[in-house]
């Protein structure tokens, strides 16, 4: 108990999610069943995850489908136990509801490395999941969806199945244990079949049966690569995103908000916009304008034409001055020292270097957008989002109504990557709907608005000291400075200042499975008001780069092979992590002679519960450098859908390579210098490497897969560049330093 007592309120604030202190949670409240938010007119709902009506079975996915395939895997968890016919299952986004809380968000809350968490620590984080239930945190993020749904959604399928069987047993006058289920039907020993559709209404009236879950050996859907539930809609143009809703009498809107971040609007002249065909209204939003038109193009032309007097940004005026401000954080005491082994101050450093990475945009394919209508005091919204309850709350505030009078439809997300946790576009759409009651509004941002009003991945600086002896690392001493995403983003969500040591700030650096005698990672929080937020792998996306490039420097200083050097430091500390290094070694044929004009690099990052190793091969071609091949090995433990895991690993890798190679947002006078893809591009088909993925399942704990591919991709690329050119690049993006073919 004394160790549990150390889990103080301060500690609770440091994780991937803030468990707000102050409220006294009784056991009763935690055990209380969730309220089923589904409405009777939607069909018979046997629990918050299953609706059966005359059309068939619908499964409610409590998380947002943003490309990661979560609708398919979460629905498969239910369908496995329900014995539904997979080909005919429909998958829907859930409404905003506390029932859909994400307990796994709390799994990263303790300030200890995930790879060597003790059993009691895992139990504590499960307890924190109960607090997440009370807060009703319905958030898609942190690569948690499958971990969160793994038991709960199978239970939902199993209890629904048993309720259906109980009704059938009564009707047929047979014992329930004599019934079996298959493809959406209950089957009696004499072969009589009753379709679930004919049992559902009666089953929904019954108390929820408690049943045991099936043995994984008996699974027929889980563990297989299933056809994705969203695929057909996405290849026929039928999948609906935020701005694909057609409503009678709809008007089309865009916004132009002060691009000098932190600045506002002193005044504006709408006349040049109103003179344009199709422009109907220019509305004052305080820090910018909205233009309403008869079509989106007219609105966008109008927004450009409005003459606006902006007030200046308080941010440092140049990119260099912004980095100077971040570097100032080193002058203050660290916010955290979550890895602190040996006596780093007493070991002389052989290498002392500084790394820098820039701000990054999310750059989702779909620019921000939403559709909204306020009708007779009731607001209906369609918006692809990663936090429905937060979005509904913000929409209600903006429209000046109670949240009970908001209906929020989560539609498909055209990419999320953390951006659509943020509620800014929802607030705008609700504000416009309230200004123009009874008129449906389709709000679409321009790409430039999207890129200049992001909540960016923060820029960061690392100062590293290191030393080697007898082929081993004996000193790894890192200080990391950046503005805090945890404080910024969670502060926005829960509406209060965050305190305490910030784990997210140093994850990917302090929590890596290396055995090094003098090993320290200190986090320094920079004071800087650039809007920042969650991004694919956030902290691990920069800390993984710092950590794994510096390990590479130590390996070369020791005169060792960088992969073997890693294995020797990792193998004993974490056999699971050692396993992915061995797997990527074998997959890539590491160790074979590298031809003239080629170079290969390796990196490994443990993030979101999944150790992931990457090897990158570079080749000189046509006077430049080409990323020829990539090999990725991961160990997320039990794999529920191998094709989706593979796709996520490729996706995360490409996202990381794109950022490392060419991603950079800079600010001049507080305005992003990049506005569209020509200035902020990403890998395309011709410069994406051939990728091979290997999935290992030795990890005893299930990890995430949406994010872990991103962090090791970046250092593996930089390490490969060093192998090819002998040039150690410590500042991203790499395109500024080497002649890549892009």
């Amino acid at each position, binding site marked *: 108990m004394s160790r549990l007592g150390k889990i103080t309120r301060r500690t609770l604030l440091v994780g991937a999610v803030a468990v707000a202190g102050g409220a006294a949670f009784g056991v009763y409240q935690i055990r209380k069943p969730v309220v089923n938010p589904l409405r009777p007119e939607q069909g018979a709902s046997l629990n918050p995850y299953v609706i059966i009506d005359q059309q068939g079975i619908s499964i409610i996915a409590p998380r947002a489908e943003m490309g990661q395939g979560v609708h398919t895997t979460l629905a498969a968890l239910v369908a496995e136990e329900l014995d539904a016919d997979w080909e005919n299952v429909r998958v829907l986004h859930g409404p905003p509801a506390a029932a859909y809380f994400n307990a796994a968000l709390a799994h990263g809350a303790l300030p200890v490395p995930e790879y060597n968490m003790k059993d009691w620590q895992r139990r504590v984080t499960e307890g924190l999941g109960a607090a997440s239930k009370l807060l009703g945190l319905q958030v898609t993020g942190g690569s948690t969806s499958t971990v969160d749904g793994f038991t709960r959604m199978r239970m939902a399928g199993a209890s629904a199945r048993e309720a259906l069987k109980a009704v059938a047993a009564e009707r047929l006058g047979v014992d329930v244990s004599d019934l079996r289920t298959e493809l959406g039907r209950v089957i009696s020993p004499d072969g009589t079949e009753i379709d679930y559709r004919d049992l559902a209404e009666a089953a929904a009236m019954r108390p929820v049966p408690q049943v045991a879950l099936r043995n994984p050996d008996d699974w027929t859907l889980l563990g297989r690569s299933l056809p994705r539930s969203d695929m057909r809609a996405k290849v026929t143009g039928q999948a609906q995103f935020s701005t694909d809703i057609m409503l009678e009498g709809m008007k089309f809107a865009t916004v132009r908000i002060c691009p000098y971040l932190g600045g506002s609007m002193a005044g504006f002249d709408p006349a040049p916009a109103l003179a344009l065909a199709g422009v109907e209204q220019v509305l004052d939003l305080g820090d910018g304008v909205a233009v309403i038109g008869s*079509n989106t*193009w007219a609105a*966008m032309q109008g927004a450009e034409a409005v003459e606006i007097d902006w007030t200046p940004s308080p941010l440092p005026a140049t990119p260099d001055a912004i980095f100077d401000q971040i570097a100032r954080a080193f002058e203050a005491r660290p916010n955290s020292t979550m890895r602190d082994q040996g006596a780093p101050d007493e070991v002389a450093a052989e290498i002392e270097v500084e790394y820098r990475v820039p701000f990054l945009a999310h750059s989702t394919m*779909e620019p921000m957008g939403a559709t909204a209508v306020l009708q007779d005091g009731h607001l209906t919204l369609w918006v692809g989002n990663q936090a429905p309850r937060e979005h509904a709350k913000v929409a209600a505030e903006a429209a000046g109504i109670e949240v009970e009078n908001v209906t929020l439809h989560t539609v498909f997300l055209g990419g999320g990557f953390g951006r659509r946790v943020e509620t800014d576009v929802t607030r705008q759409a609700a504000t416009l709907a309230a200004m123009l009651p009874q008129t449906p509004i389709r709000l679409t941002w321009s*790409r430039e608005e999207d890129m200049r009003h992001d909540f960016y991945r923060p820029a960061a600086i690392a100062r590293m000291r290191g030393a080697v002896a007898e082929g081993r690392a004996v000193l790894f001493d890192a200080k990391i400075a950046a503005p805090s995403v945890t404080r910024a983003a969670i502060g926005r969500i829960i509406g209060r200042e965050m305190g305490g040591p910030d784990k997210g700030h140093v994850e990917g650096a302090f929590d890596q499975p290396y055995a090094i005698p003098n090993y320290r990672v200190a986090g320094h929080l920079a004071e800087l008001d650039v809007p920042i937020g969650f991004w694919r792998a956030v902290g691990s996306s920069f800390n993984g780069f710092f950590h794994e490039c510096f390990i590479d420097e130590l390996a070369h200083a020791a005169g060792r092979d960088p992969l073997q050097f890693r294995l020797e430091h990792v193998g004993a500390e974490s056999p699971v992590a050692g396993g992915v290094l061995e797997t990527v070694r074998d997959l890539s044929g590491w160790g074979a002679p590298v031809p003239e004009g080629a170079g290969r690099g390796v990196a490994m990052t443990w993030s979101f519960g999944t150790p992931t190793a990457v090897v990158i091969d570079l080749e000189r071609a046509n006077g430049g450098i080409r990323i020829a091949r990539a090999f990725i090995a991961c160990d997320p433990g039990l794999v529920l859908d191998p094709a989706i895991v593979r796709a996520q690993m490729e996706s995360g890798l490409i996202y990381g390579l794109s950022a490392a190679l060419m991603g950079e947002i800079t600010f001049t006078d507080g305005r992003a210098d990049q506005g569209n893809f020509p200035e902020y591009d990403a890998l395309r*088909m*011709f410069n994406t490497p051939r990728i091979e993925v290997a999935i290992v399942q030795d990890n005893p704990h299930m990890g995430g897969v949406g994010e872990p591919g991103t962090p090791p991709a970046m250092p593996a690329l930089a390490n490969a560049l060093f192998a090819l050119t002998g040039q150690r690049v410590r500042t991203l993006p790499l395109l500024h330093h080497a002649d890549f073919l892009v």
Partner: protein
Amino acid sequence: MTVTCVVNGTPRQTDMAPETPLLWVLRDDFGLTGTKFGCGIAACGACTVHIDGEAVRACQIPVGDVWGDVTTIEGMAQGDTLSPLQEAWVRHQVAQCGFCQSGQIMQAADLLSENPDPTDEDIDAAMGGNLCRCGTYSAIRAAIHDAARVLNGGRAG
């Protein structure tokens, strides 16, 4: 003043100004929202449609200048029967978020009509203007090869 154009085989009229890009007429007037807005400057390919079978960026073509029959993603399937490319997209489970995929499919259809048996290099060259932030490129390449095999009378695989 109205502009008339044939979209997916049906003549359609719009009251939007002739200089309005085809993209916005399709999306905002005709309700054909399968064609997506990504950048507005022909840098991402999300709005790719066909005019007389040729892939074009609908964000750059004033509706008044449309010179032939327009085909959008909604016009690729015949009823419930998907086109060979769409079938290949399903077989290879290409889409992730899906936002760029209408444009990818329309661009790939143009490639296959010009070049029924493209090499990897041909595919890379043809698809370079179509961005995908989920990184589905390897699946797209495989699906194009597979559709080409089917269109040439071979077996899907």
